């Protein structure tokens, strides 16, 4: 993969992230990767995302680590303080729970607490998502925690091109970025990225134009929502792919909802106290009296992610729930 010089017309997001890491390593010698199994000797990780990179850039710059998430993020923070641009992998998002001190008390705050003397240009990658029979401790979306932490940026791509361009943006960004990779986009092919293209953080994308209702979403759910929208011949649905969840592109959201007068927010994370609550609140604050119907939210159910397949399928936002929420805003 990473030896590819010409990108093909299509690739998966998994390949696109590999390519982004490759190109970032090539472009800037301060960039390096660390995480469990990331080197080729360890196969480039369980999903082989980083495969081929240590072969090209060496094990000094693509470093496998012990199972020590605090030490991984700590090492990344320290190196970032010294001016390197580390990309640390926390295999699954749930494992951030053993490194929250490093992420939240340190990475997020050191710039502020030092009065701007130091900065932490760090990218933390992680995968997650229900639908893969991984059960309660391996499937959570926790982006709301990080979004609630001043000092962190939170990015969740939905397609290969964005995955590439947002990853490049995170690595270049002078601040710590949480880069969440939904398992549900990894193996989905899509238009290949333009090599070198950096997609600016904080900018949403209109994934589909429409006039009746705005659906604001991100990650895998962008594809789910687009599929529903395409099916609904009687409703014109605009789909906003946030790309950056925090800080989110309020202007783009408000512009769309001002146009349609109706909004639905969809994410896989548990609905209650999720990112959708903030987005809905801002829409309500800024467009009070201009909405044609209440802002609707569709999210993961209020339970741990269950193992059993029928339950797991019911946990995530289903196409019929998305459709019902869209129709609900019109009734």
């Amino acid at each position, binding site marked *: 993969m990473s030896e590819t010089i010409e990108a093909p017309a299509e690739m998966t997001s998994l390949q696109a992230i590999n390519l982004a890491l490759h190109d970032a390593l090539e472009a800037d010698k301060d960039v390096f990767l660390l995480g469990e*199994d990331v080197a080729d000797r360890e*196969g480039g990780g369980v999903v082989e995302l980083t495969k081929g990179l240590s072969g090209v850039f060496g094990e000094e710059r693509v470093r496998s680590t012990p199972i020590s998430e605090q030490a991984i993020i700590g090492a990344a923070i320290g190196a970032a303080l010294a001016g390197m641009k580390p990309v640390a992998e926390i295999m699954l998002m749930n494992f951030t729970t053993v490194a929250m001190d490093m992420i939240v008390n340190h990475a997020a705050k050191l710039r502020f607490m030092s009065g701007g003397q130091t900065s932490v240009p760090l990218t933390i990658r992680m995968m997650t998502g229900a639908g893969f*029979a991984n059960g309660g401790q391996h499937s959570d979306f926790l982006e709301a925690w990080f979004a609630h932490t001043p000092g962190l940026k939170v990015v969740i791509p939905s397609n290969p091109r964005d995955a590439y361009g947002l990853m490049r943006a995170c690595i270049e960004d002078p601040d710590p970025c949480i880069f969440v990779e939904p398992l549900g986009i990894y193996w989905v092919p899509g238009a290949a990225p333009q090599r070198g293209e950096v997609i600016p953080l904080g900018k949403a994308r209109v994934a589909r134009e429409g006039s009746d209702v705005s659906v604001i979403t991100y990650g895998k759910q962008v594809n789910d929502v687009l599929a529903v929208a395409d099916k609904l011949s009687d409703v014109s649905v605009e789909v906003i792919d946030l790309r950056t969840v925090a800080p989110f592109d309020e202007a783009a959201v408000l512009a769309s909802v001002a146009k349609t007068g109706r909004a639905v927010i969809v994410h896989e994370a548990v609905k209650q106290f999720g990112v959708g609550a903030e987005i809905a609140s801002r829409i309500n604050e800024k467009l009070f009296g201009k909405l044609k119907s209440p802002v609707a939210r569709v999210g993961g159910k209020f339970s741990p992610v*269950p*193992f*059993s*397949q029928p*339950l797991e399928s019911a946990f995530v936002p289903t196409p019929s729930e998305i459709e019902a929420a869209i129709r609900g805003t019109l009734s």
Partner: protein
Amino acid sequence: MSTTESFGGDASTRPPKDVLVEIYRKMTLLKQNDERFRSIIQSGRIIGNYYSARGQEAIPSAVSCLLNQDDYVCTIYRGIHDSLAKGVPMKQLWAELAGRATGTCKGKGGPMHITHPASGVMVTTGIVGSSMPIANGLALASKMRGDGRISVAYFGDGASNIGAFHEALNLASIWKLPVVFVCQNNRYGEHTKYEYATAIDQIAKRSASYTMPGIHVDGNDPVAMYAAAKEAVDRARGGGGPTLIEAMTFRFHGHLLGDMDQYMDPGEKDGWMKKDPVPAYRRWLVAESYATEAELDAIEKQIQADVEEASSFALSSPYPDVAELRKDVFAQEIAE
């Protein structure tokens, strides 16, 4: 690594014959269960990720022969063998693996979260290192109540590099908790070699940091394993506090089923598989006249039938109702 012919050192430390055979029965159960589960998962009839412990049977089989039903166990995603050895009923276990309503956890936990308090299996965790701090708490309850129970925490070699290991061992030591920490050192954490990730040649030596006894043992030698576990279990039960056991072993099917083993030295796995502890122990039991071929054949046949029954039960069981999503989040069901 002992050879097939020299299990357990001298005869004086061997457990009685019935225990030796019971260890074999458990090992066979674990092995056959694993084989059947792998074949069913590969056939696609059960969907899920499977962390096979094939090759590691001797460890929980020997340990469990020293435990009472009400002793506590906390184990990990690669812990189905630990659960079975402790006595989790196979039908419910299988149903859980298949995500059915009849499973130990009604299908809600799945293979990484087998729980069966009636057998003492209190937690199966998917988080590396997290079996240990919780086992401490179970042991603390036993100590405070004086109920005589002990707790076992199973974990892997990779887990010895995570913070929870350190905190748990220190706390267990200062509070002299009745807990046994059993590290199943299968030489790899995911795809990473022990030697790369771990700054000491034996995890057992890390016990010294906590003034705790540490035992390094051949985990593929059921008799030596039993002796090591007995020392630790007796200490815990006698109020002598915790022990760290490092049991050397190997997993035959990689980290996750489907694993291509590219990260292993060629021949490494073959070498271990040639010394497969289950047939080796069988040969030894017969050679040392602890059992006849016929007796062992009968055990194996019975287990085969049981595994068959369990898998059929699982596959013919219903899935849980979607309403289960609202149950067991809290004690009180969540309103719709």
